């Protein structure tokens, strides 16, 4: 009698499962994409209202923004070029987030990465096959080191990483100012800029290896591919390895992790170190791929835009690629928006802020979904 009921129940559950998996498929592939797209549209809509209020023509502004970002080989490559450091800083912020940490000092870590890479790239000559990996490693380590200290402080004293990474970021910016002006300085000029790096340290331009006519003569370099590969690697680490598992476990519930023998401190330090490495790589790739020399204060707030990138991508490494391209496009288009529609370029920062607001508000939608799911499960059968 009892088993009978249980069988029936099981049947019902199985049937419901089938249905559930069906809409799971939909919600698994479509929803996570639809939500951010919706948020982007929402943000641009609010941006349009702001422009209207101040007497700008939003349609003209957005047309020129899109033109500036996507029309023509030069613009497209500019968008992609902008996205390269943003992929790295976005990954940096996202990785730390997965461990429950907010690294808002990616900007400083980026400068440290730039410094280390520039140093290796101007101090020694090596075959490119060694030189390029070496400067990437140096940049990553320097960036990692800069986030390592906040990691240690968080693990040992509980100092909030939001404050410490921010402060380290400022220190990093001043340190790089000093080193550029005093140690790496290009003696041929009075400008605050380093010597130019050796040819062997440069990342190859894509048009040199891929015969794509559209890219002919553009500055797009293999750093773009390195960024995408890094995103895939981070995805793999988070999803498929015990390192990622532990980082996520600590991020979700440090107490339970500790109880299961996972070290909270070790994972906090590790997560911030890896996060810093990713931000450091942003600097390395910018120097080796694009600028070939280190200017004081050259970063266009990549570290901060990385926060918006990570949040919009919901800390998904693959999502980071797309979010970075979006913000890369906004920045590329922002300039032509200023030229064509007269809208101050700061509009792009405003859009960034609104995107983050939208992400913050999105948690509520999630909560509703969760509550609904719970309701449905309660109906399916509990003990």
């Amino acid at each position, binding site marked *: 009698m009892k088993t009978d009921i249980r069988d029936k129940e099981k049947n019902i559950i199985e049937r419901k499962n089938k249905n559930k998996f069906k809409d799971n498929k939909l919600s698994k592939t479509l929803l996570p994409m639809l939500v951010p797209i919706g948020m982007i549209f929402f943000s641009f809509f609010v941006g349009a209202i702001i422009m209207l209020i101040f007497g700008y023509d939003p349609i003209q502004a957005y047309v020129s923004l899109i033109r500036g970002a996507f029309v023509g080989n030069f613009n497209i490559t500019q968008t992609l070029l902008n996205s390269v450091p943003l992929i790295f800083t976005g990954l940096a912020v996202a990785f730390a987030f997965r461990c429950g940490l907010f690294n808002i000092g990616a900007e400083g870590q980026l400068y440290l990465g730039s410094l280390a890479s520039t140093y290796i790239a101007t101090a020694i000559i090596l075959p490119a096959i060694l030189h390029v990996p070496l400067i990437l490693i140096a940049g990553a380590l320097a960036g990692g080191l800069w986030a390592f200290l906040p990691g240690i402080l968080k693990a040992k004293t509980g100092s909030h990483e939001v404050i410490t990474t921010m402060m380290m970021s400022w220190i990093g910016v001043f340190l790089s100012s000093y080193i550029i002006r005093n140690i790496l300085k290009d003696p041929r000029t009075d400008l605050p800029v380093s010597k130019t790096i050796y040819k062997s340290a440069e990342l190859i331009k894509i048009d040199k290896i891929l015969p794509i006519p559209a890219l002919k003569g553009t500055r797009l370099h293999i750093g773009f591919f390195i960024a995408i590969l890094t995103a895939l690697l981070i995805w793999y680490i988070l999803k*498929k390895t015990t390192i990622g598992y532990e980082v996520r476990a600590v991020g979700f519930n440090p107490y*339970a992790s500790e109880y299961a*023998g996972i070290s909270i401190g070790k994972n906090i330090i590790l997560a911030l170190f890896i996060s810093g490495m990713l931000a450091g790589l942003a600097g390395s790739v910018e120097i080796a791929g694009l600028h070939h020399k280190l200017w004081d204060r050259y970063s266009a707030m990549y570290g901060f835009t990385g926060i918006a990138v990570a949040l919009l991508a919901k800390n998904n490494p693959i999502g980071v690629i797309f979010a970075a391209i979006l913000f890369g496009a906004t920045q590329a288009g922002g300039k032509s928006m200023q030229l064509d529609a007269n809208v101050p370029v700061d509009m792009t920062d405003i859009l960034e802020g609104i995107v983050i607001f939208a992400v913050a508000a999105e948690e509520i939608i999630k909560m509703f979904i969760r509550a*609904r799911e719970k309701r449905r499960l309660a109906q399916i059968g509990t003990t």
Partner: protein
Amino acid sequence: MENLIKQREILKLENITKAFPGVLANDRININLLEGEIHAILGENGAGKTTLMNILYGLYNADEGKIYLDGTPIEIHSPKDAINKGIGMVHQHFMLILQLTIMENIILGKETAKGGILDMNSAEKVVKQYSEKFGLHVNPKAKIMDTSVGIQQRVEILKALYHGANILVLDEPTSVLTPQEVVELFKVIKSLTAKGMSVFFITHKLEEVVAISDRVTVVRDGRVVDTRKTKDTNKVELARMMVGRDVVLTVTKDKVEKGDVVLNIKNLEALDYRNLRAINGVNIQVREGEIVGIAGVAGNGQAELEEVLSGLRKAHKGNIYFKDKDITHISTRDRLRMGISHISQDRLGRGLIVDFNITENIILGDHDRKPYANGLILNFTSILNETEKLIGEFDIRTPSPFLPVHSLSGGNQQKLIVAREFNREPDLLIANQPTRGLDVGAIEFVHNQLLKFRREKKAILLISLELEEIMSLSDRILVIYEGEIIKEFKSSEATKELVGYYMMGGEKKKINHEEMRA
């Protein structure tokens, strides 16, 4: 008898209905309260008692139904409304602010103030006055964090009285008290009703109903089963009404031969978070095939003991041996690896990562070794196989192994933990309140699993605040008091009164035996 007839109906709840996602917590509940009576509301965990009282107190809004005070319908939408109508509530989890003093907690919300500036002198005076009047003695200037649970409960009652309550709701007030403190509390409640207060007494313990109430209403699955005069009913009848079937109130324990010593704790000392001694010279041995129960009132070192044994808290002095190996300074991870499993009292905080799905929770702690991982790489095929096996074996009800654990019911969450901890094939299990907050079915399940584990000649250290649980499962019972094991019983020697006596400190505290018999 005549008394009851004369009594005035002070409060009436009519057709109260409240639905939560997936559950009808209260289904057309009718209940009334007479002036000066103690009205017990009896029901299992999840029967809807607390929901009903939260509606009365304005924490929830009812979907349907009416509340009458002295015959006039009233609206209660917030605790403020309830307080204004003279309704006070002592919650199961105390609503006290640890960092504030007793008097600050009592006056909060109805502060003694002149022009917005606090007047703490009158606060002290008022608190003392109420203390005297109701025999609830407290030190108004003490911080809550430095006071015992018993005192905190007094503060809660004083708070309700200060805010003008003449109807008092007590939600499972005895769950944190020793039998002797319960006696004390019952005296207080009786003196309150003698002064004209009316009390709703919520409980799931039959003895308490019989001991204190004038009338009892039994609630099951959100519905009222019946309301009776207490003296016209008995425990067996009430139990049947509460559970809906005849219940066997004892667990059957097979005889199991004891083997070698598995856990041997010697002269253990440990400090709490304030660096005060929480465990003091504790000696415990647990053998193969044995369940050793640690009985005690909350806050006597149980949490610290669990943490020291699992490796989360350093031992200050002394040693812990596991199968003759000194593990005192070994990490949590290594202890797990050696064959020590643990079930935490804090299911959601310590036991599970609720945002992880079932498979991810199943591997927690073993995630970096075979069969779940090869080196650094997770092996999803074996993870899924193992999870599906355990879902079947332990009857975890879920539509999918990939469901986040927060969407499972409490019982299924606990089954998941039990499955994971037993699947490590440990030789020792440390279980701290393994049935906390579970319904009868799930409690039965966990108890049976523990006994099965014992039959397999494994060792269990069971820490619990539920004296009945300890008494029905343990081979030996140790009483912990202020961080010391002050008494050991064989299960055959232990009686509730005796164990309770030692839980209060035993000879250490020279409790009046008269009180015990009362």
